[in-house]
């Protein structure tokens, strides 16, 4: 428990309305969107409204050696916001202003609490887009998505959050404010601290302002649904499309288990007898789109795919509703959904899909797989029940094997959801000792008291 004195200090800085201490209120911040994680109560929940207030909170925390857990909307999938060691949870949602849209230089300056979709709505007026679009665009914050380096459906062609962050203002563990990067497209002034912060999951500093790159909105787009009788055919189509030198904006896969569940949930007319479907969208200038669409059709047909083109906006929206429904639909089937994020080189997708089927069979588990096939980022989702101890043991074994398989295929533990608490114990499998030691020494150097999001990413004791 925090002493009354610390609470008073926080209240003096932030005002009563920005300091919550009631148990019922605090309970809301004891968990996030991640399944199968321990819950842990914060001692206090604070909502600063400006950088100076964030600074003061960190100073108080640092002086008293109290942990600070920064939180956006809590939608992350790796236990990143759980206040494992209690202390302060700092909600960033009140810092939610779009400070500048600089259409001429194609960038925008935002506070961390801005919701991703709100930024997109604001820049749409200028014919621009901010491409990173995690499934949670309507709820997740810019700060959270920068801290996680979120991906999304358009990652294949447009890249991930990291590719769009140009500059940051950060409050460091010692309470000082640092600016890095800026408004230029090129910047090699000293180490790339911007990229170091992107994806650092709140463990190195608190992001208080973000400069992001924007791009012109594509003129036209075309969406397809391709269904396949075999997983191999679907997988071959993925590599075939890329090999034909077409990079679609989106190239998503769903396996049969996912298709059936989504159809059951959303009734959008998906072919429930297909082993796999691909959802594909190409965008750009009309001629380019026409050409790329032809190439996509050709490859899918050569691989025995059945193609349906979205002719109207409504049909297109239906397709993407189906894709976005994948996780919520799977989540309805069973009380607990354990969602993984292992990512493999694109050409290894067929092997990864096979490995997932085998793992499901071996441990007698239901695993629905969907995800961003184009960039090798699959989301195998295990449908289970936390209360069933025996089954959870099998789940944990299966997860171990999923990571093993991904790393053996030259992949990584996490493509976009981050390490958080959920994947910490696997970190050394990928980074080996030298890598973990490097991460650890950076964390220790920049947060010597270990007050920022302690217990995440790396075990400091090691």
């Amino acid at each position: 428990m925090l002493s009354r004195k610390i609470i008073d200090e926080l209240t003096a800085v932030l005002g009563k309305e920005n300091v919550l201490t009631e148990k019922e209120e605090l309970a809301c911040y004891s968990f996030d969107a991640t399944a199968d994680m321990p819950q842990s109560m914060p001692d206090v929940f604070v909502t600063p409204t400006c950088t100076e207030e964030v600074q003061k909170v960190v100073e108080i925390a640092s002086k008293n050696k109290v942990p600070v857990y920064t939180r956006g909307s809590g939608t992350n999938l790796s236990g990143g916001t759980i206040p494992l060691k209690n202390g302060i949870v700092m909600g960033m949602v009140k810092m939610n202003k779009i400070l500048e849209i600089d259409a001429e230089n194609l960038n925008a300056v935002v506070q961390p609490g801005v919701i991703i979709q709100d930024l997109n709505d604001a820049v749409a007026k200028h014919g621009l887009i901010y491409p990173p679009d995690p499934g949670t665009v309507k709820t997740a914050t810019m700060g959270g998505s920068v801290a996680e380096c979120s991906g999304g459906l358009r990652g294949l062609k447009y890249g991930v959050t990291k590719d769009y962050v140009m500059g940051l203002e950060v409050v460091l563990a010692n309470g000082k404010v640092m600016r890095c990067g800026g408004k230029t497209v090129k910047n090699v002034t000293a180490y790339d601290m911007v990229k170091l912060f992107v994806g650092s999951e709140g463990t190195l500093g608190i992001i208080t302002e973000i400069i992001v790159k924007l791009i012109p909105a594509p003129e036209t787009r075309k969406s397809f649904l391709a269904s396949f009788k075999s997983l191999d055919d679907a997988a071959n189509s993925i590599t075939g499309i890329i090999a034909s030198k077409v990079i679609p904006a989106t190239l998503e896969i769903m396996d049969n288990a996912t298709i059936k569940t989504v159809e059951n949930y959303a009734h959008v007319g998906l072919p429930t007898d297909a082993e796999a479907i691909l959802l594909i969208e190409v965008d750009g200038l009309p001629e380019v789109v026409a050409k790329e669409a032809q190439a996509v059709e050709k490859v899918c047909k050569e691989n025995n795919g059945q193609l349906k083109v979205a002719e109207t906006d409504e049909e297109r929206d239906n397709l993407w509703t189906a894709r976005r429904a994948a996780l919520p639909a799977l989540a309805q089937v069973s009380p607990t959904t354990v969602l993984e994020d292992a990512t493999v080189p694109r050409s290894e997708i067929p092997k990864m899909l096979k490995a997932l089927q085998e793992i499901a069979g071996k441990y007698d588990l239901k695993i629905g797989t969907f995800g961003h096939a184009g960039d090798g980022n699959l989301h195998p989702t295990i449908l289970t029940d936390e209360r069933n101890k025996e089954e959870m043991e099998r789940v944990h074994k299966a997860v171990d094997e999923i990571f093993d398989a991904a790393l053996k295929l030259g992949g990584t533990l996490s493509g976009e959801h981050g390490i958080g608490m959920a994947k910490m114990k696997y970190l050394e499998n990928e980074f080996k000792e030298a890598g973990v030691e490097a991460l650890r020494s950076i964390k220790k150097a920049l947060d010597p008291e270990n007050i920022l999001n302690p217990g995440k990413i790396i075990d400091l004791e090691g």
Partner: protein
Amino acid sequence: MELELNTVQQIIEIVGEDNVLTNLEERICYSYDGTFQRGIPELVVFPANTQEVAEIVKLANKEKFPVFPRGAGTGLSGGSIPMSSGVALVLTRMNKIKEINSEDMLAVLEPGVITGHFNQEVEKLGLYYPPDPASLKTCTMGGNIAENAGGPRAFKYGVTKDYVLGLEVVTPQGEIMHTGGRTVKNVTGYDLTRLLTGSEGTLGIITEITVRLLPKPKEIRTALVIFDKLEDAASSVTAIIRNGVIPATLELMDQIAIKCVENFNHLGLPLDAEAVLLIEVDGGKNQVEEDIISIEEICQNHHCRKIHIASLAEEREKLWKARRAVSSAIVQLKPTKISEDATVPRSKIPEMVKRLREIASKYNLHIPVFGHAGDGNLHPNILADKNNKEEMERVQKAVDEIFHAALELRGTLSGEHGIGIMKKPYLQWELGEVGIEYLRAIKRAVDPNNILNPGKVF
């Protein structure tokens, strides 16, 4: 500090006698780079593989001698200069392309591979590695990663950082570490790959590189546009981008640069023109045609004098000749070239160009301006004679003012050449004490003995 004989012997045991230079005359060849900085290493060492690099770095930690990684030595910020001691570790023997994979669109290579050679090899397979520093015929991929090099195509395609997927690195303590990997997405742990990219040899020695490739663009069109007024050229740049055209390349040369090039190469450029833009668009056939029409229109609306357009490779090469010759041509004016790299947000280009001219006339200096206008990355080059003390003092003041101007316009000290030794004194202007302390904390944490490239960056 002097290397002990015994240490030299141990290094020879690691890499073999043939791969160590001890003669002064030979060592002098490794005392400089593309700047006017000098520093003679005590020993020049050419390791053959990662293991040897690791052993040398381990030894360096034991015996406490500095190690200065070096590629081709074309750097423009003094990054590879040995500070008159220790070992210059030259990575040019590690020059194998290990894999070019069309399916996953990536390549794996050693750091000593020459960038231009690598570009050619991937293009043979219909693939494309966009970063193209003007020094590509000589510079190494390891040096490119360490500097996060850019190039003319960076405007559309980004810089080296945007293509690095994974690295094998020998850490400052001599451990072998792998970062990133073969996937486009990877958020496992901190992004050490990006931290190392652009770290100028101070945080690790890069021994293997995995880069992402793109499909090679189908069509290319090049336009050389001549302007009477520099301001018109500068505002054409912003207008083109505002119109949603994203050329692959958008390069600017001012009148002094034009004159030098013309003197040097006789390409028929008009000597009274104040500026030339070299613009290249690529993509599908229809797209490049549409783009080039818009560009023509915009430049005409901005009072250009003449436009040459080329689509065939040889003709395009002719238009490029002028731009490629600039760096070598301008040294005719004066023997010492101080090449700056200050970068501003794109819309500030006209303003920056104006300020550069004012600075040149205020200090009575030749400052040809050319560079990657599309991404705000100009290269004002100050030409002087380093033996002329009084002139060098004026140069110093001009450099100060250039950086001031860039930062005032919300730009940065360096767009692509790095900090090295040359820009070290200015770092605080951009990052402040807090920022520099942060950098130091990182460096100290991973290189407690300060072995790798000491004296650089900050």
